[in-house]
């Protein structure tokens, strides 16, 4: 049996794909993440997120391996061997799964070792890491079962592409475009990263994703055994797998979003663990005090500098927030409170810039400077957008359409503001900023 497994490992289709998987690991955005603020939660989720790239390749390789005998016309020849067909099938499946798991585990270990040198907060999250491993194994088993049940030249390509589509569609549950059940996709973040330093990790979704992956593996194993002739055992295992996936789907559908934006499932919930974690903020900045969670302390100077540059033209104008705090919120919720504190979500900083989130962070923060307290970015009027656009442009950036949809009139107004002399501009801002915040000002 061990010898058979060794032969299958040597002759597995996944071997050819290992260089492709290695390239995928190198080009995946996890690389740039390694230079950012190192949170154990974030890195664990990065590793789980690679499932969307590795899963389809594991499934394609599994399907490709599964119909190898069919492709070479060797089905009858192998039927004469002393091993049971189910044993042969499961050994081949195990070899595919071992290679797929290795493609996940080996680079993951490297990333975990790097993170252990850099980490500023938390500890490795076992459940997302395990979830990724189970999902890659399940993808391999699913592809193998499809290859056995529907052998043909279209099977491997369509299984790989179809699985990528399914995983991606599930991940879109984050945007609300897809039903809650999509969160069972291992590509959906099983831990809410926005809140991972503010609240204890909520494991509900990770548990259900693991259960879903185990269920898919069970169903695929059952289908493989059933196809090999052991009908009763195969049907029992496949049914158990399908029931497990169904139960996970029902449970996740009954979930709701908690205060930390994590998906919480009443049946698995432990109310006591959702208390915010205590921490002492670290502050910096000149014009505005910027306070961050200690996990983000190493990049406080970059953040404070970027936000102060944005607020510079509003210095000494009435109503400017006196402090910017990080909190467990989304960018769409960025606003100034009535006590003059502007709350922003944690920002992952790359080098000396705000990184991929720079445009939405600039946009929402600039709007919060010129909005009335308590108003979100979506409620801004044209005059507020024009002043915000000027603030962003004078800081050397440009606005994006998501939070600051601009018309020619708004762009012209921002340009007029920029064309004034510094003294005239400051006078205009000091005189009109209250009306701008109240929503009663005309375009500059």
């Amino acid at each position, binding site marked *: 049996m061990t010898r058979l497994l060794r032969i299958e490992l040597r002759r597995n289709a996944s071997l*050819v794909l290992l260089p492709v998987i290695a390239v995928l690991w190198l080009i995946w*955005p996890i690389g740039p993440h390694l230079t950012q603020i190192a949170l154990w939660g974030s890195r664990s989720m990065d590793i789980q997120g690679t499932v*969307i790239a590795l899963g389809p390749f594991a499934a*394609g390789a599994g399907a490709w391996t599964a119909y190898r005998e069919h492709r070479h016309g060797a089905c009858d020849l192998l039927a004469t061997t002393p091993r049971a067909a189910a044993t042969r099938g499961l050994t081949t499946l195990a070899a595919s799964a071992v290679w797929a798991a290795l493609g996940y585990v080996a680079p993951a270990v490297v990333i975990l070792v790097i993170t252990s040198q850099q980490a500023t907060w938390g500890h490795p999250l076992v459940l997302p890491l395990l979830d990724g491993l189970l999902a890659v194994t399940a993808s391999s088993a699913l592809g193998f079962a499809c290859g056995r049940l529907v052998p043909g030249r*279209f099977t491997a390509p369509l299984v790989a*592409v179809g699985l990528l589509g399914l995983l991606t569609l599930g991940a879109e549950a*984050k945007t609300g475009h897809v039903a809650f059940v999509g969160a069972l996709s291992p590509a959906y973040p099983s831990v809410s990263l926005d809140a991972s330093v503010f609240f204890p990790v909520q494991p509900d979704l990770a548990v259900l994703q693991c259960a879903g992956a185990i269920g898919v593996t069970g169903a695929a194993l059952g289908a493989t055994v059933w196809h090999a002739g052991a009908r009763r055992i195969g049907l029992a295992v496949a049914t158990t797998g399908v029931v497990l996936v169904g139960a996970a789907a029902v449970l996740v559908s009954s979930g709701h979003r908690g205060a930390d934006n994590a998906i919480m499932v009443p049946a698995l919930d432990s109310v006591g663990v959702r208390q915010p974690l205590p921490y002492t903020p670290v502050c910096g900045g000149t014009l505005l005090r910027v306070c961050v969670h200690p996990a983000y302390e190493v990049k406080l100077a970059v953040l404070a500098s970027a936000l102060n540059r944005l607020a510079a033209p509003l210095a000494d104008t009435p109503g400017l927030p006196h402090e910017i705090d990080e909190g467990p919120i989304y960018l769409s919720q960025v606003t100034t409170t009535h006590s003059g504190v502007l709350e922003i979500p944690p920002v992952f900083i790359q080098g000396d810039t705000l990184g991929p989130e720079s*445009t939405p962070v600039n946009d929402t923060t600039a709007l919060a400077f010129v909005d009335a307290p308590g108003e979100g970015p979506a409620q801004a009027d044209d005059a507020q957008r024009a002043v915000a656009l000027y603030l962003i442009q004078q800081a050397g950036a440009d606005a994006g359409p998501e939070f600051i949809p601009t018309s020619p009139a708004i762009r012209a107004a921002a340009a007029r503001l920029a064309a004034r002399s510094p003294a005239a501009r400051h006078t205009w801002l000091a005189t009109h900023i209250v009306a701008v915040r109240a929503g009663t000002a005309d375009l500059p």
Partner: protein
Amino acid sequence: MTIRLIGLYTRSRRVDWCLAVIAVTAGLRWMVRTQGTGPDAFAILLRLVPLIAAGVVVTAGLAGPFGLVERSASTWLPWLRCGQVLATTLVASGAFALSGTSMRDLAGFIGLTLLTGAALGPARCWTVPLGYALACAGEAYLDEQPWWAWPLRAAGDTGALAMGMALLVAGVVAASATGTR
């Protein structure tokens, strides 16, 4: 004789089945038109996945069941393959045009899949396009647009259009000349 040859060829390549799958993938693309809108990585992947599916169907459909016997028996094969690729690509263009897909992206992905099929074989024709789509999604996640990521460019970008069309032409020529191994 010619009509009969083409008929037998299309049956051996299961062209009817290919066209049905292309229609289904175009339908799926239409169904995810809401989710596949926007600049984020997952939306871009959702836009590209049906195009890869159409590409792999066009490419895997080129594989024949007769192997070397067929290669040694006919000098018509390159023309038949060329006709098959052009016909299935044309049908895919029509079906995806109805679902509001960028023809540049479709052409580019069919070309890329055909080139991969010519180099690695029909069973592996999905590997490079899938990896490329994932790489593009990764760049979109980082809010970057490197020169090679033409699917991320705006609709009117002539450089991206040229890359997409060049891939299609190269793919059709390679697949017609060599088939899929």
